[in-house]
């Protein structure tokens, strides 16, 4: 687990090396570019990861991720920010020991005694907690080198002894050959040519000598090979350790290591062969092929005059025998400008473990070509130490100026570069706390923007702008304000949809408003109002249907405002309501007219007025009451008229007409009687 951050750190260190070599530009805004993903699907949609180097953020599948804000980096950085300054006596003593080792091994001072002294200090340095026993590991490796060197010396000594033995054996060999064969003795020390014409006596005599000589020669060759292999292995082990320290950003240990290396291997060969060794040891399968990134652009661009916008993206995955393929298609169109473009596809082909190992081996080879000597590592370590010290100075200065954003960024970069450097470790807790608070708040801001908690985001932006003078509020505030405006627009549309009874649009708009700003205070308010309005409307509609079924039109008329509002969006009910209101209004008019006539002493006229309203609305209690009252007041007329109507119903035309005439005689202004007379008369003369 401890190794994982170091892998990231290795990447960071390599990035640093590249920046030293290529002077990479500095990044700027950290959170300014953050925006809710659903608001800006982007040119390639949301399925393609997009990195914004300007804000150190990447977007994938609708998620916004600050590259500096991840579990590994954040926990490590926050642990550092909360750790006390390493200014204890032990820390000072450790610092002193390391400096002493570096001094003993510095160029110009390298002697056997100094190397031994430096080596003796390594176990002492490793006793301190800050060292993490790295010096002990280095002492072990140095000791291994010495052992290897002793082995080489022993082998050389053995070879010298063997050489002497070989010379003796060669002498014996020549002496034991017969006279005829003496002229055909060996011509060189390494030659195995011998006379093929030996007497049987000579053959028997020199055979043991030949075997012994052959063994000696083979042993010598083996010793020579062992000697070379031992030295090479010792070098590779040492280089691996130095590279490991470099990856761990233990730059002073790198310096100690390179100096020890130069002292131990005084042959001037400073080439780094460890990377090549590692890459060649990887199980590369040449048949696996290479990972290929494919892109295909088939643009279809068209102009459009109307408005409206659509943006979408589609992805597809597939596989074939050689690996996997993923493809993404994007379709975007812009509104207002009348422009749309589509037809971009890209994907990765032949992605597999073997191809990735092959790619890793190639990368290591390339790295080995880029950093191929210990001198380069030494220079990079020195440059890193300088850069870290400068970063801390820069942090302190920015902190004084209250420019927390830049200060925090510099501290983070410096921490990532030189986590174990004394200048970094000696920063006081108070100095680090301000960066910690700013980091926590920016991380909170990113989280708030990611989940579209705009209220919290706005509060955080304001807080950050107060604590950090250089915090650029324009981008995050613009994001927040835009999201709020869009949410408000969706809510307005939802309200309109609710008013028009368009449930589909209502749901869609409410969902959109919720997605953009889930904790929008107006959301609950508007939703409540809409749903309570819906409840009230539904209740009113239920009441209306019930009253219509009961023919209680008077109740509907008395509460007509409620029912007019409730039925506004229901044409069928609206038509019913119109009929009801017309009927009741007609009844009301009849009642008013009857009251007037009754006041003038015309009870027959009043009755007739009520009777006309009654025909339209026979169930109205008010009309019934008035009708009963006036019936008693104009009893004779009413009886004549009712008898006439009854006779007419029974098809007694003569009697009916006579009764109508009598009713007219009783009340000459009677319209009912006159209508009846006209009706029957017309029928008679027809």
């Amino acid at each position, binding site marked *: 687990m401890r190794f994982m951050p170091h892998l990231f750190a290795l990447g960071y260190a390599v990035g640093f090396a590249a920046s030293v070599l290529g002077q990479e530009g500095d990044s700027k805004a950290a959170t300014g570019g953050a925006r809710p993903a659903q608001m800006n699907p982007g040119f390639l949609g949301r399925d393609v990861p997009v990195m914004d180097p300007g804000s150190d953020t990447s977007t994938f599948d609708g998620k916004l991720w600050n590259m500096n804000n991840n579990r590994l980096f954040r926990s490590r950085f926050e642990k550092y920010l909360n750790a006390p300054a390493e200014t204890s006596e032990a820390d000072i003593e450790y610092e002193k020991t390391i400096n002493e080792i570096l001094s003993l091994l510095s160029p110009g001072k390298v002697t056997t005694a100094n190397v031994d002294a430096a080596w003796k200090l390594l176990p002492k340095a490793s006793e301190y907690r800050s060292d993490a026993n790295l010096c002990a590991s280095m002492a072990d490796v140095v000791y291994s080198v010495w052992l290897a060197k002793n082995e080489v010396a022993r082998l050389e000594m053995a070879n010298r002894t063997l050489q002497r033995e070989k010379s003796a054996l060669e002498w014996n060999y020549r002496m034991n050959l017969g006279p005829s064969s003496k002229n055909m003795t060996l011509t060189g020390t390494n030659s195995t040519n011998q006379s093929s014409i030996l007497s049987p006596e000579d053959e028997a005599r020199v055979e043991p000598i030949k075997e012994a000589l052959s063994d000696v020669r083979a042993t010598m060759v083996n010793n020579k090979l062992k000697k070379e292999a031992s030295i090479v292995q010792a070098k590779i082990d040492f280089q691996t350790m130095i590279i490991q320290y470099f990856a761990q950003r233990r730059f002073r240990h790198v310096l100690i290591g390179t100096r020890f290396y130069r002292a131990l291997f005084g042959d001037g060969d400073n080439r780094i062969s460890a990377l090549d060794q590692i890459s060649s040891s990887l199980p590369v399968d040449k048949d696996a092929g290479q990972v290929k990134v494919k892109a295909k652009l088939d643009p279809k661009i068209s102009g459009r005059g109307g408005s409206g916008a659509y943006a979408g993206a589609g992805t597809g995955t597939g596989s074939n025998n050689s690996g996997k393929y993923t493809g993404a298609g994007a379709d975007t169109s812009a509104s207002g400008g009348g422009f749309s473009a589509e037809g971009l596809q890209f994907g990765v082909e032949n992605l597999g473990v073997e191809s990735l190992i092959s790619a890793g081996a190639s990368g290591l080879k390339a790295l080995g070509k880029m950093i191929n000597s210990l001198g380069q590592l030494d220079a990079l370590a020195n440059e890193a130490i300088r850069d870290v010290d400068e970063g801390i100075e820069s942090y302190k200065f920015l902190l004084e100026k209250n420019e927390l954003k830049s200060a925090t960024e510099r501290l983070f970069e410096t921490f990532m570069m030189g986590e174990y450097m004394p200048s970094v470790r000696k920063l006081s807790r108070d100095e680090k706390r301000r960066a910690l608070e700013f980091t926590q708040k920016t991380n909170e801001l990113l989280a708030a923007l990611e989940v579209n908690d705009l209220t919290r985001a706005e509060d955080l932006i304001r807080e950050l702008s107060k604590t950090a003078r250089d915090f650029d509020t324009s981008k995050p505030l613009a994001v927040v304000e835009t999201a709020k405006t869009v949410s408000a627009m969706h809510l307005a549309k939802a309200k309109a949809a609710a008013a028009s009874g368009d449930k589909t649009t209502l749901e869609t708009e409410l969902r959109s408003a919720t997605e953009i700003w889930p904790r929008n205070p107006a959301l609950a308010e508007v939703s409540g109002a809409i749903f309570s309005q819906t409840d009230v409307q539904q209740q009113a509609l239920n009441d209306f249907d019930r009253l219509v079924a009961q023919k209680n039109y008077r109740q509907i008329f008395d509460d007509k405002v409620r029912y007019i509002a409730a039925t506004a969006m229901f044409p069928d009910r609206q038509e019913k309501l119109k009929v009801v209101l017309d009927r009741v209004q007609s009844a009301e008019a009849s009642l008013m007219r009857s009251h007037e006539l009754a006041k003038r002493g015309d009870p027959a006229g009043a009755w007739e007025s009520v009777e006309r309203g009654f025909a339209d609305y026979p169930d109205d209690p008010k009309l019934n009451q008035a009708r009963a009252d006036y019936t008693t007041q104009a009893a004779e007329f009413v009886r004549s008229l009712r008898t006439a109507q009854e006779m007419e119903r029974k098809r007694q035309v003569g009697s009916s007409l006579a*009764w109508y*005439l009598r009713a007219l005689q009783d009340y000459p202004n009677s319209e009912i009687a006159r209508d009846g007379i006209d009706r029957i008369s017309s029928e008679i003369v027809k």
Partner: protein
Amino acid sequence: MARRAHQKTPSSLLFGFVAVFFVFAAVGAFFLQKGSNPYRTVEPLKPNDYFENANSLRGNIYQVEGVIMNALAQNPEKGRLFSIVLTSESKKWPMPIFIPSKLRQINLQKNQSYRAKVRVDDSGILVAEEIQKS
């Protein structure tokens, strides 16, 4: 001369003359009566019965006498419909009366009294068969 005693008019003769006079008066009155109501043999219509159920009187012939009130409707081919007010038992009974086109020569004036011989038709309407001023 002997005075002849005044000869007195016999009382029986006087009674005879008076009786003859009354006889003539009665005969004259009888004839005069006969000339003013030509439908005296026809039964008068009882308005109450008509109002109760005209259909029950269908086919019957009655004489009616009343005042023409209003023209209700007319058809040149079929005739005219009027309302006529009969007086019976001190009450006024307005009733419809149809004057067929065959009686078109008679001018019926509003508020004038007419006597008519009527038949109750199938629909219960009084249809005048004869009519004259009374």
